[in-house]
């Protein structure tokens, strides 16, 4: 592991590299995951998922930028965006249906399959 010390931080921030992106991505992933885990509202959960997907996208772009690869990372990032759009569309449709059926979008209350 890379050794840190407080004095190095400004210099480390002045020279952006792969690590910075990865850290951003990790923070973003963690926030998304937190949203997915903690939110009771389905909409908010879906939003957490979007965050997670975007964290992945940042990773893809960053790895492509700091490697010898040409465009593979960008392509996959675009693909993920498309996928996220499709997912959002379908998920929201499901949520709408759930709401119509249960009159709620709280995940804790939607537990019919448990029984």
């Amino acid at each position: 592991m890379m050794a840190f010390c407080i004095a190095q931080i400004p210099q480390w921030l002045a020279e952006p590299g792969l690590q910075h992106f990865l850290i951003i991505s990790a923070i973003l992933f963690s926030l998304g995951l937190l949203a997915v885990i903690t939110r009771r509202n389905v909409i908010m959960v879906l939003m957490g998922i979007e965050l997670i997907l975007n964290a992945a996208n940042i990773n893809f772009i960053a790895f492509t930028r700091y490697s010898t690869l040409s465009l593979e990372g960008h392509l996959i990032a675009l693909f993920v965006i498309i996928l996220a759009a499709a997912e959002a569309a379908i998920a929201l449709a499901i949520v709408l249906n759930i709401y119509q059926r249960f009159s709620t979008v709280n995940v804790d209350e939607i537990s019919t399959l448990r029984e």
Partner: protein
Amino acid sequence: MTSDTLIQFALYILFLPLLGFVALIFFGKRLPRQGDWFGTGILGITLILSFIILFVKLISYPAETFISQFTWIDFGDVPFIGPISIELGIMLDNLSVIMLVVVTLVSFLVHLFSIGYMQGDVRYSRYFAYLGLFSFSMLGIVITHNFLMMYIFWELVGLSSYLLIGHWYEKKSASDAAKKAFIVNRIGDAGMFIGIMILFVTFSTFTFEKIFDSIAIGMIPFGSEAWLTAAGILIFCGAIGKSAQFPLHTWLPDAMEGPTPVSALIHAATMVAAGVYLIARTFAIMTGDALMVITYIGAITAFIAATIAITQFDIKKVLAYSTISQLGYMVMALGTGAYTAGFFHLVTHASFKAGLFLGSGSVIHAMHEALHNKHDHRTDPQDIRNLGGLRNKMPITYLTFLIFTLAISGVPLTSGFLSKDEILAGTLGFASVTGHYLIPFIAFIVAGMTAFYMFRIFILTFHGNHAEPSRLNDIHESPAVMTIPLIVFAAFSIWIFYSFNPFGATSGWFYFAIDRPMSVVPSVVQPVAADIFKEAVHHSHTLAMILSIAIAGLGILFAFVVYHFRKLDADNLAKAAGPFYNLSYNKWRFDEMYDKSVVNGTMGLSNLSAWFDNYIIDGIVNGSATITRWWSKFTGRFDNVVIDGLVNFSAYFTGFSGLILRKFQSGKVQTYIVFVIFSIIVFFFIFRTF
């Protein structure tokens, strides 16, 4: 009359008594008079038929042998052995036709006597049924032509003897005597069976004629003369048992527990003579050595039994020992080669010994009645010390008894003189040829002793004073049905029926009919040749006659001196004889000896095997049961604790883990996600490679 008719008659004779037995045993109680007339009548018919056969056979066919046989089992050609077939059949030769008359005559007269003697008996009809069974079996022995049937009928007479000795089986002594007779006979019969089997293994047949013919052409068992001798001696073992020869003679005195007519029929005249008949039948295959054994066994028996008879007080016991002694005489005679004399003595002895027994039966019957009238149930009616002075009260019994006693003592003009004289001449001739002078010595001593002890019981029973004079008034002569048999037997004890010359039987019809058969054994083991023997006998004949008359006279004289004129005191004589008297009075302690050795040995062995059974076998069984129980207990516990425990544990475990796991199945997606992430982190740390 043709031979077919004779055979037919013989079959009637054989099977009529069987019919009598079957009828009486099943319907005896329902017939009038309990069927005694039926049994007696049937024996009467067989007696007439026997006489017809005897006369026709001896007059028309004196030299022929008629055989009628059929194949019972045909085994065909057996591998490694050859053809085997078992034939059953009957044979009529002079020997068997004479024996037929003897058996049917005695049996008929005993039937007749029994009507009086057994009157009012509890098992009257059964008694007559068993008499019929016995007659059937005995006749079967007489007319069979093979060893197999001989053995079967041999066992049948043993059975009927057992049944009749034990007729009053409520008496312990009677049932014991019956058992003893049966078991002791069994010992001899086992030997006889082995002997027969030696012959059967060799010749693959049971038929006398075929076996004799095979031996005559040189076939002998296992190629050795010793085996032939062994077969002869083993067959003689059957005779030792049945004819009560030493050392198996102890059953016969005990057999006197049976009714007296039974003693007359079975244990004096017929069954015990079957052993002698067996020797006569198989005489041709007896080797010289086997005959020597037979001679000595007969002589020893005659001597021992005669010494015992002198001191006994029971009238029937004396007669029983006398019978053993006389049977020993016959066996000895056959052994020496005096074939005709031995068989002749069988025939004459049958009538006078049966007569003696019936006479004693008549006395016992009268005594029993007198004692019964006096309500005296303690006095033994058979003890000669309680008898005496019956001469005037029972004249017919007295006179006939006198004739029988004279006959058995060998006094001239009686049948017993003829046959005994021939036997004594035979032993003398035998001794002069072979040098065994002990045999005629014993024979003459026994003749003297016989005369002495027979006149002893005769005098003590009929002469002198009665032990209790008041009892004499109650004693009456027996009824005609009992005295007629006595008279007939007395008639047959006269010389005239056997030979017109009262001093020699050789000119009579008996010697004409019965001749010593040619020995068929190989020449190295031949007994003394018939012609040499006859020559020797001829020379010693006059000497034998003079000696026998002298010795019989001495015996009779001595008996009169001691018991009639009382010149010598019997008690003092007994004291003077000391140990000899005790030995004789205790029957040479044979019974005690057998008790100590055989009976105790058997008991010890039985106790040992009982102990073995109780402790070892039962121990093993109980031990294995205990082990099984313990093992089951253990496996039961194992089942309950371990197997059930495992099953219960798995159920419990499943339930428990279900209880735990259900907590995780909350149905909340977010919880699951947390688990997933947590798991991923865990796996990450587990499987990381750096």
